[in-house]
């Protein structure tokens, strides 16, 4: 690997880690996602600092190491997108459940209110007389 490449990747890895940590500090990233991105950053740094790891894998798979990198990136992105599809599905399911529960609760509150009003009125006071009609 050329020095320029290594420096570029090093910077990329460090920026990724830095941004992730900053997002955690500002509470804008949930831990489960933070772990994912920290691991990604660490992986990038590991490949930069110990390139032999990368070469060993590319030799084993009989792939040019640039091709291997691209391949790994695509796989990684596909996995993340799949994960997000799962998260979105779960979220929309929760949203549906919440909307339904809300509708049921609103109905129950309305019924309880009506019952309360009724029970307050009947025993205490006699029915209000209709206003006298002038003829």
């Amino acid at each position, binding site marked *: 690997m050329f020095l320029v490449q290594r420096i570029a990747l090093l910077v990329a890895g460090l920026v990724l880690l830095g941004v992730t940590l900053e997002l955690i500090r500002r509470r804008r990233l949930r831990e489960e996602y933070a772990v994912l991105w920290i691991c990604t950053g660490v992986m990038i740094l590991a490949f930069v600092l110990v390139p032999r790891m990368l070469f060993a894998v590319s030799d084993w798979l009989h792939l040019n190491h640039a091709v291997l990198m691209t391949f790994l990136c695509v796989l990684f992105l596909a996995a993340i997108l799949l994960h997000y599809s799962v998260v979105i599905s779960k979220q929309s399911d929760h949203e*549906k459940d919440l*909307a*339904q529960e*809300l*509708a*049921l609760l609103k*109905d129950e509150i309305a019924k309880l209110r009506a019952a309360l009003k009724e029970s307050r009125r009947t025993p205490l006071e006699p029915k209000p007389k209709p206003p006298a009609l002038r003829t």
Partner: protein
Amino acid sequence: MPNGAEGKSAEQKANPAECRALTIVPAYNEAESIERVVRDLRRRAPWVDILVVNDGSRDATGPRAREAGAMVMDLPVNLGIGGAVQTGYRYAHAQDYDMAFQFDGDGQHRASQLADLARPLLAGEADLVVGSRFLQPRGMTASGVRWAGIKILSRVISVLIGQKITDPTSGFRAAGRRAIRLFAHEYPQDYPEPESLVLVHKQGLALREVPATIRRRRQGASSIQPLHGIHYMSKVLLAVVMDLLKSPVRFG
């Protein structure tokens, strides 16, 4: 609760009047027709409670339905027909109803036919009864492409569940206690009518079709507007096949 005990209680009450029944009317922007639908139900099927699930309508569907004398639940957002219908099933399950009907808010279904749908449930012959437009020639109103789409869909679903189905997209249905409990927990959201047939079959519940006729729609647009033959059909088929792959629903 054991299944046997649940099925029995509906059978014992042979007379519809002794049975607690809820009619779920999903409605999205049906202000023009909802009043007539509710009044029709109150007049022709006075033995059912009416629950209009207002699916985030932007018109006066909710107030109109209340004025007409229905119980109304307002969903805070538009969930689509599946989410709206399931809200009704959740209510039916929570309130321990013996049976629940699905009845469209656009006025295409006939309140006088609710009793026909209830009969197989009361006889203990089915858990879900679907009113089919195609079991007799007189009610048929679908256009050519739409008709072909429904035909092919019927064939495929019939093969998949090993039982002849003629009208998988019909939204005119009656559910017994076991189906109410199932749908309260799990109800398909994408193409609920055909998909729920597969779900019911997978859960080992008994399915039955009875003849039903529909009126021509006067107001509003069908919720299955993109019935553009092949496109709609292939998406439904994909959904149905995926339903077959899903693991069965367990109740906690």
